[in-house]
């Protein structure tokens, strides 16, 4: 997917910190224009300009929510119907399977399964829990700084560095190992 590909060869990484949102967004746009797609952006809060610059669209989490919710609804009706058929107890000649009443447990199970599936889906898609110490990060990113981590083959690092430097980064750190983007 990246123009600066050759994923099999060794890669190096650069981590730049920015104080301003527009510098960050501009840098990401420039990097992508030059064909560098292996970018991780760090932000202290969800920032849609950054997501936009990186070209995000839908999140697969919504599928987890949908499937979870539908499973819950089906399980809720199946369970209530099964248990009343398991020991049929006729009261006043009324139907054994009382669908209107079962809507409520089924509804609650829809929500429960939907929420559980959403949480599983989001943790899976965010690739956490991930407690390995060996990750690219700077504690400043949770306080107020924005960050951009780029990996590229060694011969292109000079270009990457010059793009990163155009928008006044507060700091650039080198990562000779070029670790994977989480």
């Amino acid at each position: 997917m990246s123009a600066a590909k050759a994923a099999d060869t060794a890669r190096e990484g650069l981590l730049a910190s920015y104080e301003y949102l527009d510098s960050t967004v501009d840098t990401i746009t420039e990097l992508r224009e030059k064909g560098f797609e292996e970018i991780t952006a760090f932000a202290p809060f969800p920032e849609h300009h950054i997501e936009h610059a990186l070209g995000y669209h839908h999140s697969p989490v919504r599928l987890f929510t949908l499937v979870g919710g539908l499973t819950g609804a089906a399980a809720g009706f199946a369970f209530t119907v099964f248990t009343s058929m398991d020991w049929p107890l006729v009261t006043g000649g009324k139907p054994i399977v009382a669908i209107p009443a079962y809507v409520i447990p089924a509804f609650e199970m829809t929500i429960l399964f939907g929420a559980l599936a959403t949480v599983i889906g989001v943790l899976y898609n965010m690739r956490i829990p991930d407690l390995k110490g060996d990750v690219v990060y700077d504690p400043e990113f949770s306080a107020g700084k924005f960050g951009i981590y780029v990996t590229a083959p060694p011969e292109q690092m000079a270009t990457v560095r010059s793009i990163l430097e155009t928008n006044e980064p507060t700091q650039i750190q080198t990562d000779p190992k070029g670790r994977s983007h989480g």
Partner: protein
Amino acid sequence: MATATEKPRGAQTHPDIRSYGEVNEDILQMLSRPGKWWWVLLGMSIAGIGLLAFSWGNQIINGIGVSGLNTPVGWGAYITTFVFWVGIAHSGTLISAVLFLFRARWRQSIYRAAEAMTVFAVMTAGLYPLIHLGRVWHAYWLFPYPNQRLLWPNFASPLVWDVFAVTTYFTVSSLFFLLGLIPDIAAARDQTKPGTLRHRLYKSISFGWRGTDRQWHHFGKAYLYLAALATPLVLSVHSVVSWDFAMSIVPGWTTTIFAPYFVAGAIFSGIAMVITILVPIRKVFGLEKYLTTKHFDAMAKLCLVTGLVVFYAYLTEFFMAWYSGKPSERAVFWNRAFGHYWWATWIMLTCNGIIPIMLWFKRVRYSIPALFVITLFINIGMWFERYVIIVTSLSHEYIPFAWNVYRPSLTEMGIVIGTFGWFFFWMLLFIRLLPPVALAEIKEVLPPPFRPKKKEVAR
């Protein structure tokens, strides 16, 4: 750095916060040294838990007979307080989920504390069905599980719905709370010294969050979906609680307005409790920049609206009792206002109907001490509302022969007071261990920092 120049000061949610770093500093300092008052309050809460343990122990050893519950009033202070705490829980989800969907920007400052309140209030409410059972060791009978007698619960019963509703509510609100906390715990992790116990705790419960684009992208979407799931849930849970009553044929209970009436009451009492809790937190931790008078004004307005719905429901109930022409209904409502429990009814009407009238005035809504006092009255009034609904109806059913008066016993009072200790114990631990104001979401509504002189680039 762009501050007040981006937007007029009045349009900003938090005009006095200057930078992202400042948010971290201000909020995370709350986690460092607890003041003397924190320890005093913690001591009182633990004493409350002691009282709860003692009273409940007394009931477990000697049986449910030590409570004042007897025919015809089988539901008394326990169920009253159960409904009270479930109601308190509701505003947390309202603020975190419903106001999120409505993009109400004033929710950012208060929602974390309100959400914590929800989780702890459901934990408190959840004790009451167990206490009320009497033989608590049979509590697992509530859940549908395959057993030797091949019996299943009756899914047409509102009490079984309640088990589903409350357990789902507890699970979903906890998940919502914990997921939202992950980025903020990561911020707390980054501010603590590596190697300390706190750092290790935050490191493990922040799951290795780094705030990458990918994480924020999925996080934001998941948050939206959870909010969309929690919104109908919050409406359903108190409706189900109200159907515990409304599905019966007890006069005073069997009415179709119960679901909206209870939901409005729940939000009313919950918002009142949020204000009651936030006023001292704001004062003690100096959070005036975060919890501005505008936030309190917005909460007070919500309180006023739901309070009006509740008061309207009270009047409707009285009107319908008269208009229905049913002697049993008329007798129950006459008994409510002028019978044995007249004092409870008039406390309810005064605290929930009359006193909130003051919230119409802007000066009152902007006065923190006034709001604190008014919401204390609302908290009391809402407890009495449930007491009135439950006890007066049961004590005055159809046959005059079966009428009787219920008084809570000392054991019941001990348990009711003790659970307040239990609730505040968790609340106090929360404000010392986890960031009580949502860091990331406050930063989201602050004006973003642009390069000096050159604006308009990121748009």
